[in-house]
């Protein structure tokens, strides 16, 4: 009797221990040997499948197997992976988090070893250079353009001659296109869109070691946006019940939006919407657009899989493979040669490639991301608010972050 009851207690405690035990074995996603895990922030099924197909093709030649995981929240999953000692062998590293990761020693600086290291666009290489070292290979890039719903354009009686080339013609077109149900222009209320106007006015955020956020040029850019919004010809997607600009365009809630080549993604949900992309109009300071890019990140302690991952990156960033990605989900290849081919193959996206000549990367240094996040949140007070005050606050925080990044 007694031994039996003791037995039950032992079984009960044992059950806990057992659960703990079986945990140790499983759950190790990175594995060893020739199994690679890629974590991507996917724009949709098309992208996930294309990456998987490319990885499989490489794996077959290299006697390896690759699992592609589409993250639901890439930033969070990456940092949990690193902190959990279980980082993916290869991952999308976004431009805005890159410097933070590089500074914290998360990344393997493999990019200079790549045979095709010299083929990438110079400003993309700059984006992924930390402390003078080209760290990770740009996967592809996108620039922003002005996307116009051509049906609404024609319905408003506008012609090719009216395509906006400067701020005045943009305002005029937006005004003509604004009707009861449709707003002329729409884009997200964030630095990644409004920063373009600041740059077009001739401004910039950082000049060497000095932050120049509160310059009159930047203010002029913000005030232009304020003016369009006050006039009712510009609305943020959230104001017209759209998740992002593309949805606003596709659903006919906005006649023009500022987005990138990923606009192609709306064809699934809105097959009947006709649109055309143009270069962004020039401001008083000339033409400007942003370039957004991810690189292929490899963890600093990549171990066994590090060399395999580098070889996979070489394959994935090859001109041929990049053009296949372009085919599948519309991104622009990160090498100049492939991008030129791309512009020929996809004349409708040629304007995005043309933008690469004068595009700049949004500000990114270690610690800038949280300042930009804060700037984005302050921008929500832009309408009817104090643009100068927002820029002053940005100036102060960005300078503090820059000083810290430079170790001052």
């Amino acid at each position: 009797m007694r031994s039996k009851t003791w037995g039950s207690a032992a079984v009960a405690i044992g059950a806990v221990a057992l659960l703990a035990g079986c945990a140790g074995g499983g759950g190790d996603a990175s594995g060893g040997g020739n199994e690679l895990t890629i974590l991507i922030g996917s724009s949709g099924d098309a992208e996930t499948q294309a990456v998987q197909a490319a990885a499989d093709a490489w794996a077959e030649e290299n006697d390896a197997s690759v699992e592609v995981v589409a993250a639901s929240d890439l930033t969070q999953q990456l940092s949990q992976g690193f902190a959990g000692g279980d980082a993916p062998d290869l991952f999308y590293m976004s431009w805005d988090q890159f410097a933070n990761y590089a500074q914290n020693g998360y990344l393997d600086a493999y990019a200079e070893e790549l045979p095709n290291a010299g083929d990438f666009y110079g400003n993309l290489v700059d984006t992924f250079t930390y402390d003078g070292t080209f760290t990770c290979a740009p996967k592809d890039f996108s620039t922003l353009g002005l996307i116009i719903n051509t049906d609404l354009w024609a319905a408003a009686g506008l012609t090719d001659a009216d395509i906006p080339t400067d701020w005045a013609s943009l305002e005029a077109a937006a005004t003509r296109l604004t009707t009861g149900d449709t707003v002329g222009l729409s884009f997200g209320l964030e630095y990644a869109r409004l920063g373009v106007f600041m740059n077009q006015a001739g401004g910039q955020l950082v000049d060497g070691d000095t932050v120049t956020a509160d310059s009159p040029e930047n203010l002029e850019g913000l005030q232009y946006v304020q003016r369009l919004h006050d006039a009712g010809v510009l609305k943020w997607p959230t104001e017209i019940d759209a998740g992002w600009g593309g949805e606003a365009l596709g659903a006919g809630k906005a006649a023009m939006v500022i987005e990138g080549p990923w606009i192609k993604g709306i064809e699934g949900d809105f097959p009947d919407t006709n649109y055309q992309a143009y270069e962004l109009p020039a401001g008083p300071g000339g033409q400007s657009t942003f370039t957004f890019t991810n690189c292929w990140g490899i963890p600093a302690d990549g171990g066994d899989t590090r060399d395999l991952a580098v070889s996979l990156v070489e394959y994935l960033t090859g001109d041929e493979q990049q053009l296949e990605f372009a085919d599948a989900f519309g991104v622009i290849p990160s090498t100049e040669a492939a991008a030129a081919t791309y512009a020929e193959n996809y004349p409708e996206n040629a304007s995005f490639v043309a933008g690469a000549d004068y595009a700049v990367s949004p500000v990114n240094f270690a610690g800038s991301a949280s300042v930009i996040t804060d700037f984005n949140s302050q921008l929500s007070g832009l309408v009817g608010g104090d643009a100068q005050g927002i820029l002053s606050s940005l100036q102060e925080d960005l300078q503090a972050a820059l000083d810290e990044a430079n170790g001052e």
Partner: protein
Amino acid sequence: MTATTATGAPRIRRHHRTYTTGQIVTTAVTYAILILLAVVYIYPFLISVAGSFKTEADATQNPLSLLPQTWSFTAYERLFTSVPLLGWAGNSALITVIVTLSRVFFDSLAGYALSRLHFRGRAIVFAGLIAVMAVPNVVLLIPRFLILKQLGLYDSYAGMIIPILIDAAGIFIMKQFFESIPVSVEEAARIDGAGIFRTFWSIVLPMAVPALITLFILSFQGSWNEFAHFIVSRQSADLNTLTTGVASLTSGQLGEGNQYPLKLAAAVLMSIPVAVIFFIFQRRILSTSEGGEKG
């Protein structure tokens, strides 16, 4: 309950006769307020169910209507095909079953020891328990993540389950309950020669069924609806539970649009098990939340 209704019935009639105009107005107003409030509490759920059967455009344009313009099952089709909803549900079910059984068993075991068994250090253990109950859950997010990682349990079923196998409050509930049972029954059993575990298992526990049911309901709801712990204890998509999976739908991925029908369908489906448990034990939960403490 039945007793009060039986004696209550004639009183109601007596009151009816003495109603003044003022009382009638008050009653009418009370009913109006309560019915309005009931609508406010229930209608959101009804239009969510309706919304899950609408088309995207219909759900956006006619959010209030209870009947879809055209019945669309697209949301549900997608949930069972392109969204791994069944996998999420499987994980939720597995975790809920293990956690609920474990809590019911271990909490009553510990609660019994703390209320009935005399052992050295009992007072200290109990004081520790009280202290532990004071730690808010969200404060534990980062610490739990750190320890799971340290123990190599991060991103595994074990890491998701073991930390929540026992909850201090459950032990407390059971301890309080056992204290309300007369000691004489156990003493009789022990005089008959039953061992301590046997006394607990076959004499005391059957008497504790009301408290066990309370604990069962709380544990079931708590583990099925748990969210924050699963955010910090896992990252693999395979380990998504319904809460974290649906959260990834709700918090939205780039370029996916609002997709209200899909999100509502997921929210509706994930609420079904807790709703079923609620309706099964409805009378217990609602007529009195005293639960086992009546003794």
